[in-house]
């Protein structure tokens, strides 16, 4: 009889793609194995997955969040070590970093995709106002001022209501330019830098400057409000993650372009956040481990990478084999990988293991900084204090 593998995922938006492209492609090659993609609302995913894993009723294939969330599952022996899975060799150690133990010995998820931060802009608006794509900080503010003076468009489509927008689209977007990507991030982990250091306060100072360029009532503006403001043509610039591409393509009625976070001064090295976001793992309790491994190997293959990246522009494959993408906006994003230095979000690895949770605090403080309820210095101090309370970097 056919073996059925169930895939647990939070990506319910991808349901159609799985059903129409990914699963048929796999099943065609692997008769006898059936795949059921069973997504959960993202807000419930972690909690429900944990409960099911604990009770032993989770699906065979587990979609992995990056870093600690999955590492925890592996440590609890709920995920199988995939270090030697055929196909794993298709990924560079950097690509696997998000799903590898701290000592680098075991990898437990097959990396699927990463997302890149930057800014998406309304090309029509820029053309109309005669604005060139900003490369530096100064050009960026000049452009914002010009848009604001014109009054047709809201300069920046971002709100602080949902908190994470401010942190992810703001802080993590422009931050790497100041803390110098991996260099700063590793220094922070090693305890050589502190969040109160200028490298880490500076991004907050920049965020604080954004306030005048946001729309009226941005404090209560939600993420989808921002999306809609932009796609309906009412805002000129959208601090973005590459995952927006697919949606914006279908919704925006104007031409769009993208630019990476502007560097502080012309000539500075640019950094981008190229963040591993999604992987797949094998449930240790799966009764069909062999079949599941077959599937995982297939996910590690260039074939899957191609299908996935092209059906979901904005989710960039982590496979070493380059994927040819057809979407211009996606190409634009991925093109930054060369000239700019890639890094992952600063709070994701190790630093959010304790309580208070640095990532969550960063959300709150980023919003506070933009709202003006905390100064950048105060915000940074709060974060560092919170981190100090539990994080003791190895000396």
């Amino acid at each position, binding site marked *: 009889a056919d073996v059925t593998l169930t895939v647990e995922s*939070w*990506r*319910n*938006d991808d*349901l159609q793609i799985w059903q129409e492209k990914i699963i048929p492609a796999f099943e065609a090659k692997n008769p006898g194995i059936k795949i*059921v993609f*069973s*997504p*959960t*609302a*993202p*807000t*419930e995913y972690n909690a*429900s997955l944990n*409960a*099911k894993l*604990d*009770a*032993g*009723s989770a699906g065979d294939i587990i979609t992995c969040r990056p870093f600690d969330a999955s590492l925890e599952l592996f440590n609890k022996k709920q995920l199988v070590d995939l270090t030697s899975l055929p196909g794993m060799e298709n990924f560079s150690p950097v690509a696997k970093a998000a799903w590898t133990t701290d000592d680098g010995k075991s990898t437990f998820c097959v990396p699927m995709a990463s997302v890149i931060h930057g800014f998406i802009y309304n090309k029509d608006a820029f053309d109309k106002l005669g604005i060139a794509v900003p490369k530096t900080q100064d050009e960026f503010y000049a452009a914002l001022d010009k848009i604001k003076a014109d009054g047709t468009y809201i300069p920046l489509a971002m709100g602080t209501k949902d908190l994470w927008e401010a942190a992810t689209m703001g802080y993590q977007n422009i931050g790497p330019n100041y803390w110098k990507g991996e260099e700063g991030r590793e220094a922070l982990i090693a305890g050589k830098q502190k969040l109160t250091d200028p490298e880490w306060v500076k991004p907050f100072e920049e965020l604080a400057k954004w306030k005048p360029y946001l729309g009226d009532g941005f404090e209560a503006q939600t*993420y*989808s409000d921002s999306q*809609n403001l932009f796609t*309906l043509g009412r805002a000129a610039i959208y601090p973005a*993650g590459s*995952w*927006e591409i*697919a*949606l914006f393509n279908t*919704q925006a009625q104007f031409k769009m372009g993208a630019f990476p976070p502007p560097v502080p001064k012309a000539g500075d090295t640019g950094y981008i956040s190229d963040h591993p976001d999604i992987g797949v793992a094998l449930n240790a309790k799966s009764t069909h481990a062999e079949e599941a491994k077959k599937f995982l190997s297939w996910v590690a293959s260039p074939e899957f990478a191609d299908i996935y990246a092209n059906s979901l522009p904005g989710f960039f494959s982590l496979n070493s084999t380059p994927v040819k993408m057809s979407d211009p906006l996606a190409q634009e994003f991925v093109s930054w990988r060369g000239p700019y230095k890639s890094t992952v979000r600063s709070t994701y690895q190790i630093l959010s293991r304790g309580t208070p949770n640095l990532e969550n605090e960063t959300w709150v403080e980023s919003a506070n900084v933009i709202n003006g309820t905390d100064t950048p210095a105060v915000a940074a101090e709060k974060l560092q204090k919170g981190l100090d309370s539990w994080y003791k970097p190895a000396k």
Partner: protein
Amino acid sequence: MSKARTSPIRTGLVHLALSAYTLVALFPVFLTIINSFKDRASIFREPLMIPTPSTFSLVGYQTVLGQGDFATYFQNSFIVTIVSILLVLLFGAMAAFALSEYRFRGNTLLGLYMAIGIMIPIRLGTVAILQGMVAAGLVNTLTALVLVYTAQGIPLAIFILSEFMRTVSDDLKNAGRIDGLSEYAIFFRLVLPLVRPAMATVAVFTMIPIWNDLWFPLILAPSEATKTVTLGSQIFIGQFVTNWNAVLAALSLAILPILVLYVIFSRQLIRGITSGAVK
């Protein structure tokens, strides 16, 4: 002939107040429903407009209904909700009767024990519940959901029903006892019919969280065959992209059956059930 006890001015004021609040209550619902029939752009451009031929769109509904076997989902939701309500009403009312009618040692403590359930969110017990269901082989069955919802609904049912049962005239129950009715007959034939409004209230209160629950269907019965409507429609609540058309359509669709159930139960809210009993 108009009525002596209802002065037109007073009635008018009452209607005014009630209509005012009805507006407050209905307006958001009205917004939901009209917007579920519009295309995405106009949901956001003119949220207050009723659908016009140019903005009218069933895309949300098409998405929803194309996205899974909604007939089965509805059926599952109905089965789970109705069976759970019946069990909650039956078990809850029985226990409430025991607690309110008889004095016995530990009565209040037992009442307190039965109320623990409303003091801690049952979700916290998820892991143990799920383990139990796995052990009993009930995962991905509607029975698992029914069991959980019954347990979840019982405390509130007892809490409310015992209070109402205390208002049933002792003379009436005594008349039953004299008539040779057993305690069971007194419960089923006299007390239950007389607390009908309270039973309806409990039924409605029990039904809402069951129907709208996402968590336990997700944990206990996520399979296609056992999915409930709420779980079925949560597909549309995405991480980064939200398909508002579909959300609105799915939720509008999900209101309808529960509204029907509400109307059915609320017909039991009748006045003067006990009038004429004693003097």
